[in-house]
């Protein structure tokens, strides 16, 4: 059958380039492999040139595929499943890229795009001293990874099994529905499903590319470790790997915290980190990379811990693959709130392919490592406890153990799937991580503080004690002051855990101070070499911010605080009743604010509603408005975005958990008409009404009429049950001799309508009062106060800048380029974390 209006060309082009990318990466892999084993220099050269050509071809193909998907989505070609599933005409154009990486295929594509760019960078710089001689083995690994990523989006049938899912499948082939038997089916498809409303957010545009660049970049240290073994230049690769490991640490770290900022700002989890398996899956490769970075630095300085460097470089990338497996197969779907889910048909294939992907990189790499273990040089000298390398190594091991712990806990669903066990997460999953990690934070804080005051090889006792004394004293004083002036109030887990939090607080304050002091007193402000200290100080500040923000987070919509809706059956210490219903126009006390919900307005997007909350400080010194918003579909709340008031030292954070149903229920109540003179009173069930005055075009706080209009306005005071006084202004507008228009006034707080119903012959005013039995207009919300949350973001930005400083130093980047890079990173991060977004 011929179908009308389909655009089949882009799909054909796209599919061709997917095949091309697959074949070209295969050719590049083979070419680079032959080049790396080739002994003859001329042969090697020509194989490299050949493989480069193949790699350029696959890069071009990947970019074309990306372009075609972009075209399909931006032109709303709903004959393609990908556009139908992820794009929609109503979607704002800034989300266009976001809907490309919403889907599995698109996010794999994003990954291959970054691999391609990293590959091009390595090829372009292969003559530089740092990369000289590494191109062939490193690129054979990257090309091999590209082969697997291309396979994930291949969509080719082999023996009736679909290998990979192509982004260019047609809607009519994917969905069985009667309309596809009609040639003109496209005219019935008015719009696509569009980006999930949960993901319509600034961070959805920016977070995935950064995170995937972080993931993609972990392949370089892995490939270099492989190259070290392959070329038998066992130790040479480390100095090349350090700048790349620093790059990974920076980008992946920033990517992870962007996810945290996103969760904090708009996913209404009530925080930035929940130890969700998906979050853990991205944290673990970062931790391992950080551990590896430290062992590599040790090796560079002392020739020690080369074997550990190999292991960590390999494992960091392996954990990236493992986390891909965890998040993409749906295996976490019972334990994670935001894992991908798949339908059964694609599940098995995706499962097998991702396991294969994981296995072909993990097994050979580890086998090679252990086979060559004895050949990897190691120093047979005692490391004294007075050396920097000793404490750095301990730190790296602790970080690695922490990452093993997190992996083990996250992998419980895998364990269940393999063994058929039925282990479920504990009652308080976050606490089961926190109680361990708080001690890790303390140890890491302490090591970070003292580490740099030791020298490599040997440290003089006097030097160490002299230099470390003042920062130790300062940290102790500051922590003690904090304990007294601003104690942590987190008592949910008892005194033991609170004590552990204080210990961790000391550790992180100590680390921040000691590293700052180190820059000042030992490096004498030489920023060129201060990258490590800056990064450590930033990390420590981040820890301080985390401890204070979680230790003193307050639920301000807690019913016990506001004094409303207290059921008496509950153990209220354990679960604060966090939801608070706010009836429109009825002020409610929260902390030291009176908060009033004053109504909603519609956004540009379908189903988006903004709800206005007016906060007025009790002493009237401050007044601000927050507009948390929701997406509503089929009369129901679909997703909620917080409204946050940011201060330097705290955030007031609100989000809506329920809204009043907007049912068009018939209002069965009728107006009760009273005839009143000025000053008369009429009663209603909850209070009384006073008619204050009546006038033509009366200008009031509510209305301003033009002189040519003819409006008869009544000013009425309504006094409710709790003696609350409200003003109402119903009026009659005389349009012409035939038409008059009665405009009723609504008092949401009393759920009442007031009508100017007319004038009697005896010059009395007919005032109508209706007590509505329609459902009230209200919202239910949660509100929190996060103190010093900005320290978390500030610490992250400082850490990232410090890591970039180290990278510049280690990669020997020219001063002008370095300045530009640093300025760019600093400004971009500051903008993203403090200005843009929510």
């Amino acid at each position: 059958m011929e179908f009308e209006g389909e655009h089949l060309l882009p799909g054909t082009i796209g599919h061709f380039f997917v095949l091309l990318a697959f074949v070209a990466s295969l050719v590049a892999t083979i070419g680079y492999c032959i080049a790396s084993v080739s002994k003859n220099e001329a042969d090697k050269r020509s194989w490299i040139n050949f493989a480069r050509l193949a790699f350029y071809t696959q890069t071009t193909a990947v970019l074309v595929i990306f372009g075609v998907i972009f075209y399909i989505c931006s032109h709303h070609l709903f004959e393609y499943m990908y556009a139908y599933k992820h794009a929609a005409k109503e979607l704002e154009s800034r989300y266009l890229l976001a809907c490309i990486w919403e889907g599995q295929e698109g996010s794999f594509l994003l990954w291959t795009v970054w691999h391609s760019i990293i590959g091009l960078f390595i090829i372009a710089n292969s003559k530089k001293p740092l990369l000289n001689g590494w191109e062939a083995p490193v690129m054979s690994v990257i090309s091999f990874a590209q082969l697997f990523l291309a396979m994930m989006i291949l969509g080719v049938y082999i023996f009736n099994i679909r290998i990979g899912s192509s982004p260019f499948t047609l809607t009519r082939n994917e969905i069985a529905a009667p309309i596809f038997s009609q040639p003109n089916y496209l005219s019935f498809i008015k719009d696509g499903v569009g980006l999930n409303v949960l993901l319509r957010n600034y961070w959805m545009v920016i977070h995935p590319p950064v995170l995937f660049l972080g993931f993609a970049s972990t392949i370089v240290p892995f490939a270099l470790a492989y190259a070290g073994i392959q070329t038998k230049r066992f130790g040479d690769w480390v100095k090349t790997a350090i700048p790349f490991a620093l790059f990974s640490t920076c980008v992946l770290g920033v990517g992870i915290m962007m996810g945290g900022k996103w969760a904090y700002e708009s996913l209404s989890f009530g925080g930035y980190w929940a130890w969700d398996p998906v979050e853990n899956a991205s944290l673990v490769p970062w931790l391992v990379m950080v551990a590896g970075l430290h062992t590599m630095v040790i090796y560079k300085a002392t020739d020690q811990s080369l074997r550990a460097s190999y292991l960590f470089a390999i494992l960091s990338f392996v954990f990236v693959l493992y986390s891909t497996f965890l998040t993409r197969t749906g295996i976490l779907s019972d334990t994670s709130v935001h894992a991908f889910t798949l339908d059964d048909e694609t599940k098995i294939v995706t499962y097998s392919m991702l396991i294969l992907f994981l296995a072909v990189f993990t097994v050979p790499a580890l086998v090679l490592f252990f086979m060559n273990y004895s050949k990897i040089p190691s120093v047979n000298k005692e490391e004294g406890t007075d050396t920097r390398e000793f404490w750095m190594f301990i730190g790296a091991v602790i970080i690695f153990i922490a990452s093993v712990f997190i992996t083990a806990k996250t992998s419980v669903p895998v364990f269940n799937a393999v063994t058929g066990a039925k282990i479920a997460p504990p009652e308080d999953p976050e606490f089961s991580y926190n109680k361990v990690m708080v001690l890790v934070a303390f140890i890491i804080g302490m090591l970070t503080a003292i580490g740099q005051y030791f020298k490599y090889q040997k440290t003089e006792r006097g030097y160490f004690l002299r230099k470390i004394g003042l920062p130790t004293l300062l940290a102790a004083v500051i922590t003690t002051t904090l304990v007294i002036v601003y104690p942590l109030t987190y008592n949910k887990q008892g005194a033991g855990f609170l004590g552990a939090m204080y210990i961790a607080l000391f550790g992180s304050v100590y680390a921040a101070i000691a590293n700052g002091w180190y820059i000042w007193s030992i490096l004498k402000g030489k920023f060129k070499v201060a990258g490590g200290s800056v990064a450590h100080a930033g990390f420590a500040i981040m820890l301080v911010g985390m401890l204070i923000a979680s230790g003193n987070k307050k639920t301000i919509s807690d019913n016990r605080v506001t004094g409303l809706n207290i059921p008496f059956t509950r153990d209220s210490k354990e679960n604060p009743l966090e939801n608070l219903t706010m009836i429109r126009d009825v002020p409610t006390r929260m902390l030291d604010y009176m908060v009033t919900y004053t109504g909603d307005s519609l956004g540009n997007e379908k189903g988006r509603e903004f709800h206005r909350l007016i906060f007025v400080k009790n002493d009237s010194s401050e007044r601000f408005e927050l507009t948390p918003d929701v997406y509503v579909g089929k009369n129901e709340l679909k997703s909620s975005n917080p409204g946050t008031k940011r201060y330097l030292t705290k955030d007031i954070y609100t989000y809506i958990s329920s809204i009043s149903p907007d049912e068009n229920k018939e209002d069965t109540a009728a107006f009760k008409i009273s005839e009143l003179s000025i000053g008369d009173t009429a009663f209603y069930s909850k209070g009384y009404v006073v008619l204050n005055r009546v006038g033509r075009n009366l200008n009031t706080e509510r209305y301003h009429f033009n002189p040519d209009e003819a409006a008869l306005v009544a000013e009425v005071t309504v006094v409710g049950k709790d003696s609350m006084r409200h003003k109402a202004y119903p009026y009659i507008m005389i349009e012409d001799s035939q038409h008059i228009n009665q405009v009723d006034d609504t008092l949401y707080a009393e759920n009442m309508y007031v009508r100017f119903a007319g004038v009697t012959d005896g010059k009395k005013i007919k005032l109508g009062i209706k007590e509505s039995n329609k459902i009230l207009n209200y919202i239910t919300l949660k509100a929190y106060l996060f103190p010093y949350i900005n320290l978390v973001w500030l610490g992250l930005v400082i850490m990232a800048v410090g890591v970039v400083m180290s990278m510049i130093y280690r990669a020997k980047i020219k001063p002008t380029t370095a300045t530009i890079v640093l300025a760019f990173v600093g400004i971009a991060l500051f903008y993203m974390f403090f200005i843009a977004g929510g």
Partner: protein
Amino acid sequence: MKKTHIFILVGIAVLIVALIIFGFPSSDFSTYDTINSAKSKQGKYVHLIARLDHSQPIVYDPVKDPNYLTFSIVDSLGAQTKVIYHNSKPAELEQSERVVLQGKMQGDVFECQNITLKCPSKYKDDKKQMEKSVSEAK
């Protein structure tokens, strides 16, 4: 063996033991249960995987109490129980295909502390939506 190696090995051993004791005590995991087995473990923290019982009403009136939701569930074995959740009603509860509830059985009522909804995957949703949009178009 070097002194430092011994030190590190002992340290790691201590840490692992500590992790096992502090990180994985038995209270650190719970179980997936059926409604009947949960009823026999009164007051014990469990996970239930079940479906919403559409024959029973979902009660949530935020004006009265925004922290009180009740509904009923049935599991794959046909057992049924009432659920009380002291929080707001999760979006799309009615549309959910499957619910994972965490909490404790108290008498005949499941005191729920956390709800995870499994909604029909987008893919299946599309089909319905497609068919609907077609019928609307005609």
